[in-house]
């Protein structure tokens, strides 16, 4: 038993932290918050050079064959600065899904492209009437000859507007149960019939899009994995993406805690640093508790994805998703309260964290969804 970062991970974390400080300072975040594209090529290229797009990929495709935990320390660092850009969508949504579902040709093309930083992808899953239910897929993939025709709307697709390819979940069969009938298609984002529009979201540091598909014609060989097995593949990649999001939440929460604690030491009212008052002190203590306990759960969830069984992998990713996102939100709100007026200004950075925290709460399934997942599995168990 050894539950802490190993030396390599500590080093990765240090490098990531330094990278973020140098390349993605808060001024950059503020700029990208307003910028419709949401990241600069320069910043993306540097992340690629750091090897971040290749970490989880197999060596055969130019990857580094590392563990999810290794990548998580990077997402922690990015979370600590609400770093913008399509890393999450590319390496956790797109690459992981191709990894689990793609054939050799697809892997060769897409994974190699991602590892080299030449391709960016994303996953188009959620639909307007599904809410936070990840398994709600109604988009139709109508078979005609050796082609499928996709029709429908996908929402909350991260970074679709700058992605080179999209993985789209649609129903190629009968019925609408969650488990069966969903197939995945991997398409060029420039295909005819696809129109992508940026959603004006609260957390504009991570861009989300609406993607409409009108009679988009897809070849048989652009199906990703076996027909009707899409949900199985997705479950595996979504779990990993959820854990990545948790790492981001822990990093963000920790930053909020530090901001609040520093402020509490310096801000004087009633001739005392406000941190001497228990109302403030205990609020800061609670933040510390929420950050560190979330981190403990994150470690388990990240480790379990690579080394645990599929039941534990699902339970842990769902648990971490609920807990880390909620703690991030709580800590961000608490920090604003500690900073009071100052924390409520646009000028101060805290609001970017609050907005990211709110986004993380509902991205990749909200707490209600994941708790129901846990109840379902625990119920079966006994």
């Amino acid at each position, binding site marked *: 038993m050894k539950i802490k970062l190993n030396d390599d991970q500590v080093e990765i974390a240090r490098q990531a932290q330094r990278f973020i400080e140098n390349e993605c300072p808060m001024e950059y975040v503020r700029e990208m918050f307003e910028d419709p594209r949401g990241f600069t090529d320069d910043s993306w290229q540097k992340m690629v050079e750091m090897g971040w797009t290749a970490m989880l990929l197999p060596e055969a495709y130019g990857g580094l064959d590392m563990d999810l935990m290794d990548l998580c320390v990077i997402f922690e660092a990015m979370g600590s600065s609400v770093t913008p850009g399509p890393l999450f969508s590319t390496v956790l949504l797109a690459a992981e899904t191709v990894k689990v579902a793609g054939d050799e040709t697809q892997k060769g093309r897409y994974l190699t492209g991602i590892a080299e930083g030449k391709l960016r992808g994303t996953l188009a899953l959620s639909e307007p009437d599904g*809410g936070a239910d990840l398994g709600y897929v109604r988009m139709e993939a109508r078979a005609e000859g050796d082609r499928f025709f996709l029709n429908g709307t996908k929402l909350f697709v991260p970074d679709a507007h700058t992605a080179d390819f999209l993985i789209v979940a649609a129903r190629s069969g009968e019925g609408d149960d969650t488990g069966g009938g969903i197939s995945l298609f991997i398409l060029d984002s420039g295909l005819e019939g696809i129109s992508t529009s940026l959603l004006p979201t609260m957390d504009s540091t991570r861009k989300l899009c609406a993607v409409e598909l009108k009679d988009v014609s897809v070849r048989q060989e652009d199906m990703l994995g076996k027909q009707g097995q899409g949900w199985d593949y997705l479950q595996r990649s979504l779990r990993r993406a959820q854990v990545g999001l948790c790492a981001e939440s822990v990093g963000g929460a920790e930053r909020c805690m530090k901001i609040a604690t520093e402020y509490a030491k310096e801000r004087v009212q009633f001739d005392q640093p406000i941190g*001497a008052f228990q109302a403030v002190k205990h609020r800061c203590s609670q933040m510390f508790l929420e950050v560190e306990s979330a981190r403990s759960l994150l470690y388990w969830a990240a480790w379990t994805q690579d080394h645990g069984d599929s039941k534990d992998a699902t339970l842990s990713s769902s648990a971490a998703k609920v807990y880390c996102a909620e703690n991030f939100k709580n800590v961000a709100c608490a920090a604003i*309260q500690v900073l009071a007026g100052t924390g409520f200004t646009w000028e101060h950075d805290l609001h970017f964290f609050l907005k990211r925290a709110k986004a993380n709460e509902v991205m990749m399934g909200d707490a209600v969804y994941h708790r129901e997942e846990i109840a379902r599995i625990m119920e079966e168990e006994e």
Partner: protein
Amino acid sequence: MDFRFTEEQEAFRQEFTSWLEQTLHEVREGDTPRSFESMVEWGEAARDFQKRLFEAGYAARHYPEEYGGQGRPTEEELIVSETMAAMCPEYRHPLVVTLGLVSPTILTCGTEEQKKKYLPKILDGTHVWCQGFSEPNAGSDIVNVSTRAVKKGDHFVLNGQKVWTSFAQMADYAVMVVRTNPDVPKHKGLSYLLMDMKAPGVEVRPIIQITGDQEFNEIFMDDVKVPIDMLVGEEGQGWMIAITTLMFERAMGDAMIANTQLKGIENMFAVAREVKRSGRPVIEDPRFRQELAQAWIETMVLKCHGYRNISQLLEGGVPGPEGSIGKLLWSETGQRTNEAVMHLQGPLSQVMKGSPWSVDEGRWQHSFLRSKGYTIEAGTSEIQRNIIGERVLGLPKDASRAQRA
């Protein structure tokens, strides 16, 4: 015990409601609250609306006629306020300080001359006022005010900085708590002044808040001359005036917020009908039904408690620090309700206004962010809990504050 208004009062409510419906029909499109492009535009709209209220005889029903009021029972003012709070809070909000804090202070503590000069222009919508209390080093520790006012001849000369001043950028005048005597214990050296915002040396800088709006401002004063006849009360009474005259209006304000929030709950049910989860309207989901009901319950608590406070004051009861409950209730309930509405919306909660996918025109997204200020503005929750603990329950001050007092 009686939760009803009298028949006469109910008749007045009907009359006013009809007038309001028609007027709103004239000034805004549709039934939903208007939003404004800029704070200045918002301020102008509020002034214009106040003018209409005044001309129709609905401004300050309970004020003496000589100051522009109608000399009617306070209940009628309450009816006007609560109806507006439910139907068009956006036309009252920029005037909350003016009508809720400034005019009652002038009415209660001002000289006859001050009342005649300022009140009518407030009631008819000519003038908007703001309030300069907080300073960078006087936030929760409000008696730490350091803006200096030095008497020179027939003027005070003001130097200093105020912060968190709502709607200062549209204000014609301000009420200011300033230090006129630095040699006596902190709260005893404060005085209460009226200040012309157009006076030379006054500079206003808006603060952008996390919603992107600019509700609050900094005010910088550099050798600003304030005539001595703009002093309210005596020198050194500033603190007493600031805290003691406002209880009634604060209680009324709290109750009004309940009405606005109750309207919000109606809206929350509408959102729950519209938004779907797993293909079904959220309102059919037993888990979210619990949240809907809980939000309604807490908001009714707000309303009942607010009315109970007002009713006590209407009977001439002395308003006490118990009023801090009202502040805590509306701020924390408001935050919880906003969180709950965001939950209902699932991932749609991320979409702000300006998209075909926006729920309810993005109102809740804005409101969610705005709500994070509730527990900070007008005295943080921590300060309210100190007030209840110390002034209502009689618990001792903590050592550092006890030493100072």
